[in-house]
């Protein structure tokens, strides 16, 4: 079957006329239809980063701990000592989730889990970052509940704890929800696997379920604007996930890797068979030749184009050392998994695809994988930013008592228990701190690791227990109102959450969710927020080990708020350093680290605040400033206080400001179903004479952490904080059945049981 390529076909594949010319020059001839499809997915933004690569170069990507760096492989790897390492990455599944929320989100989880075990690591926890429109819309509720149950379905059945996450609700995401899935795995240094087709003559195996027509060209789909028609037309581009199959494939792959028979391994994720074959060949500088007749197929009469572009799930490509094929067979038969030898590694540098012996595609692998066009897009400051800078919130109409309840029941701030109670967040016996504190804390122990070879001496050796902390963050309102500062704050908040749990950052993975980069104003948001992220990652010694870019996130009403999601992983040295956010005991002293108000402009914390959004319906104003050096000193200071002992809780002030953070310290400890452990607090802010009430209670000035300590330790802790040089204020004591705050504008009191009800049940009420 030969079809000559028309300009119309080129356009349908999302390629420009210039890109088509480039394809012709790479091939030295016209491509055929299959080749056109292959180029279109490999040169999509999803696979090639053609619009963002120059920006991503600004990220810090080096540290002595990094064993596999950003862009080298499917996920970065960081040394955590004692011969152990972690692999982690975040990836988006936004467009599929907009079209089919359950399967879209489920396969997002499946895809990122595969990226991790492809590296030879055992996946041991998952996180997610979600964004939806407002819950008043029935369509948004459908998407929200579909996405959450999709994540639950995949993660729970696979047997991975979904241990932390974040959910924001904002009109800009209506019709274009964001689903960013993160996975972390653990392995020994010597177990790192590579996605390279090494060894001329080595056989290439396909393992996992048969290839069908599902998920056809999903990568290309993800790289276009989402429109009303596209959602309906593209339903076939959404894959269907089978978590049970994935678990079998993972166990079988880890068992196979332990034999040493594997020369290279890569999952078939975005762009399926196409991406895995050309990338493995490109990395090894070899060629690869496969015959599609040997690829297991679920549907009859599939064309080479369909087979090459299918994104059927749970499939892996494995390059096996010649002569050791029987081991693949033995292990995959044990797990009752389909496998097939589909090709061989060659020395031609070309990706040759045959169908029953007849060549259907013949492309230089490296040029296809690594030489997509790179664009330097135009950037222009968005027109709305002038208005943002001019905005001041002058009217102080704060009704403190009712406003705090409004904020606590605002879905973005309210407890996410409706979400995480659907996730198994405890399986694998490692969840030391689960969802609901500033950062999750996970224990790594012997059975967290992949299997060792049967004859290995260290097979039964003890593995040192390790603790890691994880947080995923991004306040996109800030990024919208000031992309550069917002980018910095996203990283700072993640680092602050880690510090509050007692952890020191190890590394970062980011997910850049933006609108259409051809719009110079959108590209400005992208460029400036990446600059902010990069600067902050440097400041906290949290290099970027990899990530994902998702562009074209628009709905018919416009682009989403720019959302560079930041997931950060840190290490906790000792079990006794693990700290949670809630107050522990009556009588403990409450202390603030950091300045309650911005010293130069006390009203600055109101710009972009949850208070303005939830109470006044306004998303405007300059977001709070952030001084990265001071912020880092605060984290260092908090850690040194935690190491010295006596810090019983630590919670950062973020969305909703000081009053919300304080309320969360009082109400967020959930012992069991229907059983919160509530503790009141008495706070005296009457020393803040000049402060406006709204800024004092609900302003979102950065670099603030609320801690509680034993009464005996209070003086010592305050003195130590002063010596270290971080601002410190004694605020009051833990106790009673109400949160009481005294200010010069009056005294306010809220029963903790009432605050808990507003905060805990808000989302469930909206969903019922």
């Amino acid at each position, binding site marked *: 079957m030969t079809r000559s390529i028309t300009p119309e076909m080129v356009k349908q594949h999302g390629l420009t006329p210039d890109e088509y010319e480039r394809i012709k020059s790479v091939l030295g001839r016209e491509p055929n239809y299959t080749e056109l499809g292959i180029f279109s997915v490999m040169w999509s933004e999803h696979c090639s980063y053609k619009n963002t690569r120059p920006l991503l170069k600004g990220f810090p990507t080096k540290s002595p701990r990094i064993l596999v760096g950003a862009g080298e492989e499917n996920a970065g790897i960081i040394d955590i000592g004692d011969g152990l390492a972690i692999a982690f990455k975040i990836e988006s599944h936004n467009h599929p989730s907009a079209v089919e929320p359950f399967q879209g989100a489920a396969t997002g989880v499946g895809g990122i889990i595969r990226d991790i075990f492809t590296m030879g690591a055992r996946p041991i926890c998952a996180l997610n970052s979600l964004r939806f429109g407002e819950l008043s819309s029935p369509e948004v509720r459908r998407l929200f509940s579909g996405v959450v149950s999709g994540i639950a379905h995949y993660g729970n059945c696979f047997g991975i704890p979904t241990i932390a996450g974040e959910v924001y609700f904002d009109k800009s995401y209506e019709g274009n929800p964001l689903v960013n899935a993160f996975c972390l795995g653990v392995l020994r240094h010597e177990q790192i696997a590579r996605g390279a087709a090494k060894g001329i003559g080595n056989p290439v195996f396909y393992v996992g379920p048969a290839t069908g027509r599902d998920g056809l060209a999903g990568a290309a789909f993800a790289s276009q604007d989402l429109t009303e028609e596209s959602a309906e037309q593209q339903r076939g581009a959404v894959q269907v996930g089978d978590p049970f199959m994935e678990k079998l494939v993972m166990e079988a792959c880890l068992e196979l890797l332990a034999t040493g028979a594997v020369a290279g391994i890569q999952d078939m994720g975005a762009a399926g068979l196409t991406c895995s074959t050309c990338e493995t060949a490109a990395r090894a500088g070899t060629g690869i030749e496969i015959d599609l007749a040997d690829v297991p197929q679920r549907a009859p009469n599939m064309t080479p184009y369909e087979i090459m572009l299918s994104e059927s799930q749970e499939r892996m490509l494995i390059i096996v050392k010649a002569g050791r094929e029987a081991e693949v067979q033995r292990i995959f038969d044990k797990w009752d998994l389909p496998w097939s030898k589909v090709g061989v590694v060659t020395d031609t540098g070309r990706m040759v695809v045959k169908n029953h012996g007849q060549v259907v595609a013949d492309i230089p692998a490296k040029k296809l994988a690594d030489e997509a066009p790179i664009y330097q897009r135009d950037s222009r400051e968005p027109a709305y930013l002038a208005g943002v800078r001019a905005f001041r919130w002058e009217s102080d109409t704060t009704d403190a008592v009712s406003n705090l309840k409004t904020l606590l029941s605002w879905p973005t701030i309210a407890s996410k228990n409706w979400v995480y109670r659907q996730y198994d967040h405890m399986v*694998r016996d490692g969840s030391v701190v689960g969802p609901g504190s500033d950062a999750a804390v996970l224990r790594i122990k012997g059975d967290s690791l992949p299997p060792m070879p049967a004859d290995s001496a260290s097979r039964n050796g003890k593995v040192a227990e390790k603790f890691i902390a994880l947080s995923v963050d991004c306040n996109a309102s800030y990024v919208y109102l000031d992309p550069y500062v917002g980018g910095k704050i996203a990283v700072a908040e993640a680092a602050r959450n880690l510090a509050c749990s007692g952890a020191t950052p190890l590394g970062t993975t980011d997910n850049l969710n933006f609108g259409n980069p051809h719009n110079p104003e959108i590209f400005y948001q992208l460029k400036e927020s990446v600059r902010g992220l990069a600067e902050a990652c440097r400041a906290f010694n949290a290099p970027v080990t990899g990530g994902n870019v998702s562009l074209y996130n628009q709905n018919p009403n416009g682009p989403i708020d720019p959302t560079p999601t930041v997931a950060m992983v840190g290490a906790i040295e000792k079990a006794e350093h693990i700290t949670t956010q809630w107050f522990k005991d009556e009588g403990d002293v409450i202390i603030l680290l950091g300045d309650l108000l911005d010293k130069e402009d006390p009203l600055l914390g109101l710009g972009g605040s949850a208070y303005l959004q939830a109470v006044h319906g306004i998303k405007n104003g300059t977001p709070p400033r952030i001084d990265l050096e001071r912020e880092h000193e605060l984290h260092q200071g908090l850690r040194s206080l935690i190491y010295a002992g006596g810090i019983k809780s630590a919670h950062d002030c973020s969305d909703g400001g000081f009053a919300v953070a304080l309320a969360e310290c009082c109400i967020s400890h959930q012992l069991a179903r229907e059983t919160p452990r509530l503790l009141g607090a008495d706070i005296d802010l009457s020393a803040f004479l000049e402060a406006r009430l709204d800024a004092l209670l609900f302003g979102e000035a950065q670099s603030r952490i609320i801690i509680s300590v034993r009464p005996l330790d209070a003086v010592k802790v305050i003195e130590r904080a002063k010596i270290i040089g971080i601002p410190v204020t004694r605020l009051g004591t833990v106790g009673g059945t109400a949160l009481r705050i005294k200010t010069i504008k009056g005294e306010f009191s809220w029963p903790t049981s009432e605050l808990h009800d507003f905060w805990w049940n808000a989302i469930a009420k909206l969903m019922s």
Partner: protein
Amino acid sequence: MNFAVLQFPGSNCDQDCVHVLADVLGHSARLLWHKETSLGNADAVIIPGGFSYGDYLRTGAIARFSPIMHAVQTFAANGGLVLGVCNGFQILCEAGMLPGALIRNRSLQFRCENIFLKTETRNSPYTNAIPEKLMRIPIAHGEGCYFAQPDTLSRLKANDQILWRYVSAQGETTELANPNGSVDNIAGICNERRNIAGLMPHPERASEAILGCADGKSIFESIIAWQQQQAVAKAA
């Protein structure tokens, strides 16, 4: 004591059970692949949680036909101890080794949260060493709503076969304390002979202080204590 922990392809709490039995309690615990046909020297069998065969059809519906389950049935028929946790409980009900069935949660959603568990009788190999207080233990299931016909229920009560119920922090069997709609707030039962038991909550996730609670450990300690008593009785 030698524990055998069954491993179906979709088991995912198997390692957690081994971890608690071996690393926390210091006993021998061995994983046993579902294609095996013998339990070897096992003194007790644990059927762990997970999704045995993906459980797309019905939880536990396929697992009961696996080769290892024949060995487990013979073992139990001879009086051997078999404990099913979560999916293991579902498998035991599907296999007819325990009465009743586990159906979709009343909420129609998966639930993962801590609950309070009241031990209704200490007269069993699984409860004899549980202290006189409520246990705080996590659940994690989508199909944990225990159901049995009225005559079965009366038999369970008459024979003291209800081992655990979901209760409030005050120990009351209330509607609110019931996380899945189980009849009579039933969380776990045993057979008439009392050697086979199943429960939906996960004691293996609540056996170490660092994970927030160690109440669940006493269920495993009960098994160990019972086994020791048997050995002493035999010797005497």
